[in-house]
């Protein structure tokens, strides 16, 4: 489907929602909209695609409660906004749509969380992407450095070929919010694998140490919880160029979740897991056992950290022997460590010792 076909389809499906609300009112019913519950308890492993998706549990958004009634009302306003944007070939950021709602009177959003949530709900119900709704996130994807040739169609419609190592500055290639084929074409690469790095500091360390050239790697900066476009970009590298993906993060409960959203799919966007997650991505550290094995400088787990770890023990995505072991070990230690803690042994230690050891286990080091 072309972009405009997808837009038309999106509007058609949104109309169906408004129509259903109208019909329910007309029949004297209490309007409601049924959606899969977006909870931890309602994500299931999909064997076919090897990612986690929403299960069968449904929740009703009903006009019986103020909150539900408001969201149903906003759905119609949102539809109108989307229709108008498509007709005039404009787009808006999620933040802008939140501000646009200022003009909706009673229906206006009270926080951006509400508008983000509704955009995701509409994706789920219509099985479209928010890009099809002409809504885009304001945050960009993160940065990429490595020998990768791509062709990007720029905002003026011009196709630009560039190499993500030689044609970019030190901050790398910035991943745009839309990384679909019509926007970014993947060309060729000499890289043997992709390494996704949580923090900017470690990303820059690897760049400075020339890790990408030395080991033929493509470095991707995750910037904390990765944006959709970053995850989609990684997935395309994996799918289309057959590059193995490794994830290198801090050693704390939140980093485990970063890995999970790259590899398994995030709870919040489980309706898109098939499209965003890279099931074959490997976690290389910092692991709980690294803390002891490498005798890393640590911080004590905070109460929030402990709560997060305990929540992970109940998270079906982490219900594997490996993750149970890691989580329980971290709880036992009561400690966490940052990736940059490796600097304890010198600035080169991460590229000369730590990563080679880890990659070797995965057979990714050059013989």
């Amino acid at each position, binding site marked *: 489907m072309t972009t405009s076909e997808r837009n038309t389809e999106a509007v058609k499906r949104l109309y169906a929602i408004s129509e259903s609300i109208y019909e*329910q009112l007309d029949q004297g019913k209490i309007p409601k909209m049924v959606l899969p519950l*977006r909870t931890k308890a309602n994500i299931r492993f999909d064997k076919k695609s090897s990612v986690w998706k929403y299960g069968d549990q449904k*929740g009703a958004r009903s006009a*019986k409660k*103020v909150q539900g009634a408001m969201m149903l009302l906003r759905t119609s306003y949102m539809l109108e906004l989307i229709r108008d944007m498509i007709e005039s070939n404009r787009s808006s950021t999620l933040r802008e749509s939140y501000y646009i709602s200022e003009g909706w009177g009673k229906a206006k959003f009270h926080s951006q969380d509400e508008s983000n949530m509704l955009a995701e709900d509409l994706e789920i119900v219509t099985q479209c992407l928010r890009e099809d709704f002409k809504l885009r996130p304001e945050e960009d994807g993160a940065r990429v450095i490595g020998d990768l040739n791509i062709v990007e169609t720029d905002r003026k419609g011009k196709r630009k070929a560039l190499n993500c190592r030689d044609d970019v500055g030190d901050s790398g290639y910035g991943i745009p919010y839309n990384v679909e084929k019509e926007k970014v074409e993947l060309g060729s690469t000499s890289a043997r694998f992709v390494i996704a790095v949580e923090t900017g500091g470690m990303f820059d360390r690897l760049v400075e140490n020339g890790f990408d050239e030395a080991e033929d790697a493509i470095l991707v900066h995750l910037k904390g919880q990765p944006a959709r476009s970053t995850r989609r970009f990684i997935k395309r590298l994996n799918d289309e160029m057959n590059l193995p993906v490794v994830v290198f993060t801090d050693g704390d409960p939140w980093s485990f979740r970063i890995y999970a959203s790259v590899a398994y799919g995030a709870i*919040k966007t489980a309706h898109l897991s098939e499209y965003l997650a890279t099931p074959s991505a490997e976690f290389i550290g910092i692991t709980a056992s690294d803390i002891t094995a490498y005798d890393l400088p640590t911080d004590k787990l905070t109460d929030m950290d402990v709560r997060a770890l305990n929540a992970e023990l109940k998270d079906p995505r982490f219900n594997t022997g490996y993750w149970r072991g890691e989580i329980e070990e971290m709880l036992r230690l009561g400690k966490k460590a940052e990736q940059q803690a490796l600097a304890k042994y010198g600035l080169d230690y991460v590229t000369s010792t730590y990563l080679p050891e880890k990659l070797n286990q995965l057979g990714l080091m050059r013989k």
Partner: protein
Amino acid sequence: MPSSSTAQKLAKGQKEISVSEFFEKNRQILGFDSPVKSLIMGVKEAVDNALDACEEAQILPDISVKIDRVDQKEYRVTVEDNGPGIVSTSMPNVFGRLLYGSRFHAVRQSRGQQGIGISATIMFGQITTGKPATARSKVEGAEAAKEIDIIIDTKKNMPVLLREDYIPWNDVPHGTRVTFYMNGRYVNGRQSVYEYLRQTAIVNPHACITFIDPEGKKYVFDRATDQMPPRTKEIKPHPDGIELGTLMNMIKATKERSLVKFLQNDFNRVSERVAKEICSASALPETTRPTHMTLESCKQLLEGIGKVKIMAPQVDCLSPIGDKLIRKGLKHVLEEVKPEFYAPPVTRDPKVHSGNPFLVEVGIVYGGGLPKDQQVQIYRFANRVPLLYQQGACVITKAIENTDWRRYGLEQRGGSGIPFGPAIILVHVASTKIPFTSEAKEAISSIPNIQEEIQLALKACGRNLKTHLNKKERKSKTRAKFEIVQEIIPLMAEKTASILDRPVPDLRGTITKIMNVVWIDDQVKFEKGRHKVKVSIYNYTPKQQKFSVHTIVPNGCLDEKSCSLAPTDVRDGEKVSWELPRIASTEIYHLTYELSGLDADMYQEVELYVSGINPVDVMGADPLPGDWDVEGLNFTETEAEEPEEEDADEEPDYDESGEDLNDDQ
């Protein structure tokens, strides 16, 4: 064996200590035990006297208090009133002699009791600063005011005048001004001169109090009413629970020549019959000469009194503030906090402790700007005087702690202790003799009958609070649904219709399904001395409804002609019933009526009851209590059950699944 000379030596060393000397050495007994407190005590004694004097003369008090800082430690306090003034010959004794006063022997409610206050204050000032006090007073009709500079000879308990002048005080027809110096410390906060005056203003709404603090800042607590508290009558002591010492003093002082006459004439509520009964119960001849009575026969008499049933003392010796004025006083002073609710105050009937009549009053203020997460504030008053110290030792605090406030909508761990919540609890104990724990008059002793009375009053007022809170909760629940059907659903219909280019659908079905209830809302407006009440009845059920509503109005205030629908019944002038016409599904019926002759704040909440309809189908009114036809206003508290219409087989609420969707923190 001690020689007689030792005894003589000891006797030489023993000498009379004057009262003033005694208090000079034990000033904490009078409350002058810290610099902060001394200043408050000084102001308090002068203001109490001023209020008492005005009340006695039935003059609306105008009192001004000014505090100036002389140096680091020393302050000058000036208190002026518009009272009747003091005749010039009495001035030295009033200001310069302890235990001199008109009220010491009187059985009636007043602020000061022993005549220690103002002279003790002057003495304290004299001790700490070495400076005399200045008093000026003018009685009505006098050409000039007399002004004296006075100190107290503490050894002799006698006033010493250092200066005596007559001053034309032309702009003042009558009044008294006293200025004294004392060491102290001026502070702000819960225990401060400002707080003392503020609370004084609450329970003395007839007084206008002006205060100028050491910074020169002026506060005016304006008069909330022109109505003076009625002058309290002086009564003779009541024999119940009288103490032996008091009895012996009375016997010594009596002019009566026989026991029976003494009992009959020197006591309250003792008739000739009762006097004779007491005599026979004490096995003392009626003709016994009181002057000849021994300690032994006095004890006998006391026992005899205990055996005879005597009528409770009359109550016109007490001056309750009254529910109306408590509310006014609170409102006036608490304006800036904007409390959400003033629970109708409760004034209990008088009771007796140790022969002294007393009564208890309670008021509760709730919500608005009052802090939510702290202990409630307790305002304690004894005979219209605020008690700022020794909260923990006071029977008022004990009574509050022993009341289960959870039943009345306040937080309280374990159901005892000082409750938490956005509230002020006011308790006023009025008595001819307040049993204070000490001369400093800071806390009331824990006397069981007093504590019991306070608790009963607290509970009655607490129920008023709870009624309000219940109503508020019900209203907010209903308001949410009302918002859905009145605003959101119509907008939804309009929007979807316009997007789909179809006609706006009929919403009745949806609305009645969401509400499925008869909603009753009321509004009270006060205009031109009349309360205009509008009761709106929304039938949000799918069926038509026919039923009756009932309400209670203050007795005799309903203007029947103003009713939009003629009442079917008006019982006892206060219980009003209307049989409503049929109300079709989704229709609204408005019922209006007016009340006249009430102050604006005397009717704020409409009590509504329904009959002839399943109460579960009604929101905003309670089922008619079973005793509507029988009793007066004492309703049993009935809770309307909440209609719960959740369909069990439905999906869980999508928007309230309550889980954090984000993987990051």
